[in-house]
């Protein structure tokens, strides 16, 4: 038995997405930039797909720019807002401490170029306060970028509130919606977001494709120069099979958003309740304001990578924010941002389930994790010290 519980990393491509892609390999294979009939058939299909994607987030088709995925969309959005601001002498950007690296590393680069970056603290439940964003906004603020939902702990941020604040203050607002799209309803008008990044493979679409929503009136800057694709804003022949797969997957996900949440939330809560029974553990992130499929929990006295490997042996596929899984000495910046000490952040486990999972699988995960945590604690000198009282429990 293999239980896939790493859907925040990537998802299985849905049947409807695969079927939607197939015609684009052998039938509609033309280049949308070509004037010949085959090319024009492809161009027409591309236009139709763009309309369909736009409708799913209540945007206009000309506000959708297809990209290679979420990271590219994040980069382009941030660079665009920075360059736009710079022209007006605005060189201050606001974000949060627990953004995805696609955002944080782009901001690091801008900081080296002379931009001032304010990273807002996240509270211990993993939620950003809209009022903190408001307080941080200055005359020279060029951009506010706050993720829609966190990729590790799944907490959902007050996007509508932040959108309202930014709109009133006349500041561009971008949100990295890579984890949220297809799982939480998105209406760019109601949320008052100016730019929004999406990646297809997080909602059963194919890898290597995503899009950036950029509100009409914002002058988008290129990351990739070349041909006039995407109205001159993103060169390179369009990945039509990928775009078709993404559109089909997103349509299906958005149509089933409530149905999936109704199925997932009880599964997620069952998992949380079962795992919380393990002594000296802690669930990371707000239990209510979180993605329907996200569970993130720390176990004191053990290290995450060995936990993952032993769970994999039992057929359970998960992930961790431990340093060993990241290849650095520091554990996940997300876990540190919500105030977890290094000691326990190393012992984190992320399980991200999908609507394909079952109650039986949740129970199997609970019993397996309980067993593996107990075993690893038996061979851990840290656990030994905690038990003997020579080290103090944190959790």
């Amino acid at each position, binding site marked *: 038995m293999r239980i896939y519980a790493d859907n925040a990393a990537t998802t299985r491509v849905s049947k409807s997405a695969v079927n939607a892609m197939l015609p684009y390999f052998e039938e509609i294979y033309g280049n949308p930039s070509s004037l010949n009939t085959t090319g024009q058939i492809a161009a027409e299909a591309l236009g139709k797909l763009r309309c369909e994607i736009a409708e799913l987030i209540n945007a206009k088709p000309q506000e959708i720019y297809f990209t290679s995925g979420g990271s590219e969309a994040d980069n382009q959005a941030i660079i665009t807002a920075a360059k736009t601001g710079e022209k007006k002498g605005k060189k201050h950007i606001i974000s949060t401490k627990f953004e995805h690296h696609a955002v944080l590393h782009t901001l690091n680069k801008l900081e080296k170029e002379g931009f001032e970056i304010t990273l807002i603290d996240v509270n211990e439940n993993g939620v950003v306060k809209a009022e903190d964003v408001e307080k941080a906004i200055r005359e020279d603020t060029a951009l506010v970028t706050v993720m829609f939902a966190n990729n590790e702990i799944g907490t959902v941020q007050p996007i509508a509130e932040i959108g309202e604040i930014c709109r009133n203050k006349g500041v561009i607002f971008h949100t990295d919606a890579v984890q949220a799209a297809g799982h939480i309803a998105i209406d760019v008008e109601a949320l008052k977001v100016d730019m929004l990044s999406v990646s297809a493979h997080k909602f059963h679409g194919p890898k290597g494709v995503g899009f950036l929503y950029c509100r009409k009136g914002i002058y988008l800057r290129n990351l990739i120069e070349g041909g006039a694709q995407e109205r001159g804003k993103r060169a390179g022949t369009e990945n039509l099979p990928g775009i078709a797969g993404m559109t089909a997957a997103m349509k299906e996900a958005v149509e089933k958003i409530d149905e999936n949440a109704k199925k997932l939330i009880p599964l997620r809560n069952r998992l949380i309740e079962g795992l919380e029974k393990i002594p000296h553990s802690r669930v990371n992130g707000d239990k209510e304001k979180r993605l329907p499929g996200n569970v993130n929990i720390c176990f004191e006295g053990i290290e995450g*990578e*060995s936990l993952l*490997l032993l769970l994999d042996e039992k057929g359970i596929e998960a992930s961790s924010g*431990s340093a060993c899984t990241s290849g650095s000495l520091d554990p996940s910046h997300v876990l540190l941002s919500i105030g977890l000490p*290094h000691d326990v952040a*190393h012992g984190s486990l992320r399980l991200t389930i999908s609507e394909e999972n079952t109650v039986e699988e949740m129970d199997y995960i609970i019993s397996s994790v309980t067993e593996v945590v107990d075993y690893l604690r038996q061979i*851990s000198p*840290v656990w030994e010290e905690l038990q003997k009282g020579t080290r103090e429990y944190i959790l």
Partner: protein
Amino acid sequence: MLYSEKVMDHFKNPRNVGEIENADGVGEVGNVKCGDIMKIYLKIENNIIVDVKFKTFGCGSAIASSSMATEMIKGKSIDDALELSNKAVVEALDGLPSHKIHCSVLAEEAVKAAVRDYYDKNGIEYDKTKFCDGDCCHCGKHQDVEE
């Protein structure tokens, strides 16, 4: 796969796990902040390591490295145990990924720390510069082996 079969074997079925009551030497190295702690217990008779046990908090390669290191020094003389290098542990494990080499360094140092404890307890003179202080986050002495 990230790890060799040998690493996975020693990780899943670690040898010499546990504690030794009234051990003659106990060494602990690493730092919980960095995510690795190794503790090695030695039973020594006539300069020979007659028994060795370990406990490790850490990743798969840290557990496998400690298991392998204990196997390699069991039944050996103290001098032989002090000769155990992290490279020998890596070779015995059929290799470690480059960013996991520090786990083998930790195993080498844990053995040395346990011997040092034995020396201290028995008032035996030794060259202090040949032993580590156990602070792996800040030591930086093994950078050359990391690449």
